[in-house]
């Protein structure tokens, strides 16, 4: 569905953000895009949406180059930015203005999502708090029914019940022909939803595995001390002792803590990838 080959991109000619970045994203999954601040998560989403153009290499979305900004691409792809901009208009005007761009937009779903986020459909966007605006735009994004949904830190600024509703809605609307790509630092908000983990660092994709593969290939254990085993990949201090990661012994072990996994990916990348 999204196919990136040999991508190079930078904001200045002297320094590349991405060099020879390769990434294939298939449909039917909720992908979590992880990376340090400044690693290029938002830039990658912008490149996929056609808001920025590649310096080298190719990006194909539905077989089309996002640079062309083909209507067949844009009406099936929605980018939810971290900080939403909303004009000072009513929700109804917002729908009238933006929904015609998305042929599969469902007003019924939109009203249902507003209800689940406890937003009043007659409310005026100009009079909403930042969090409420974000929820209104999330409800819109989810109701566009686009095949691709790119979300940049969607849970930032959401209150606790809304995070729960957001998870419920996402688990309900993901289907085999849709792809959700979510960049996030708030991995604990979304860890039960993400079924593929992608990590980006130093201009490359340094990790790209499904949760099923992670559960089957890595052994997470909690011990009183760092494991003395030779094949220990990573350990981290946690309140209950030390969380150790080693290659799997074959038996599914424990639910991977994705924050700890991310730290392991960043500190011992080659050993992590060798376990797969």
């Amino acid at each position: 569905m999204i196919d990136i080959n040999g991508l190079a991109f930078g904001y200045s000619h002297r320094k590349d953000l991405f060099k020879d970045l390769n990434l294939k994203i298939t449909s039917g999954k909720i992908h979590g895009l992880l990376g340090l601040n400044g690693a290029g998560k938002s830039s990658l989403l912008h490149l996929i949406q056609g808001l920025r153009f590649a310096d080298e290499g190719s990006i194909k979305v539905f077989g089309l180059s996002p640079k062309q900004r083909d209507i067949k691409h844009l009406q099936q792809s929605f980018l939810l930015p971290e900080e939403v901009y909303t004009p000072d208009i009513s929700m109804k005007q917002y729908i009238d203005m933006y929904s015609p761009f998305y042929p599969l937009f469902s007003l019924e779903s939109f009203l249902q999502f507003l209800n689940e986020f406890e937003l009043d459909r007659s409310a005026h966007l100009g009079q909403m708090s930042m969090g409420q605006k974000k929820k209104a735009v999330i409800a819109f994004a989810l109701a566009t029914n686009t095949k691709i949904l790119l979300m940049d830190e969607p849970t930032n600024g959401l209150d606790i019940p809304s995070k729960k509703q957001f998870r419920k809605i996402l688990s309900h609307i993901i289907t085999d022909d849709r792809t959700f790509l979510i960049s996030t630092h708030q991995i604990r908000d979304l860890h039960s939803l993400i079924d593929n983990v992608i990590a980006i660092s130093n201009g490359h994709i340094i990790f790209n595995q499904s949760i099923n593969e992670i559960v089957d290939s890595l052994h997470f254990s909690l011990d009183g001390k760092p494991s003395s085993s030779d094949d220990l990949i990573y350990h981290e201090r946690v309140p209950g002792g030390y969380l150790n990661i080693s290659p799997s012994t074959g038996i599914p072990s424990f639910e991977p803590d994705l924050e700890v996994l991310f730290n392991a990916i960043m500190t011992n990348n080659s050993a992590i990838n060798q376990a797969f």
Partner: protein
Amino acid sequence: MNFRPPAPIFLQIAEHIIQLIISGDWKEGDRIPSVRDFATDVEVNPNTVVRTYNLLSQEGIISNKRGVGYFLNENAKKLSTTYLKKQFINEELPYFIKMMKTLELDFEDLKKEYNEHK
């Protein structure tokens, strides 16, 4: 000393369902929630529930009737008990025994506690 962090989500869901079957809340022959409904209910990715249902199908506890949904098999309760027993002996008991050794508890001590809890 070893401790037990939570099992992978697909196994947590499997154990949850098995407990519902053993307690009789879910009855043999009953239709169980669809993958999507269950995923939405517990806020997980539907692919995780697919993995749980595949596991329970392999164990003979549930069956998929094409186009209709998943149902509990006739011997689901017996098979669920067998699964949970196996899981308890392989996963829980080693920790329990380790703890007994650490605390130097013997079977007589356990017997006393057991009788008090009965």
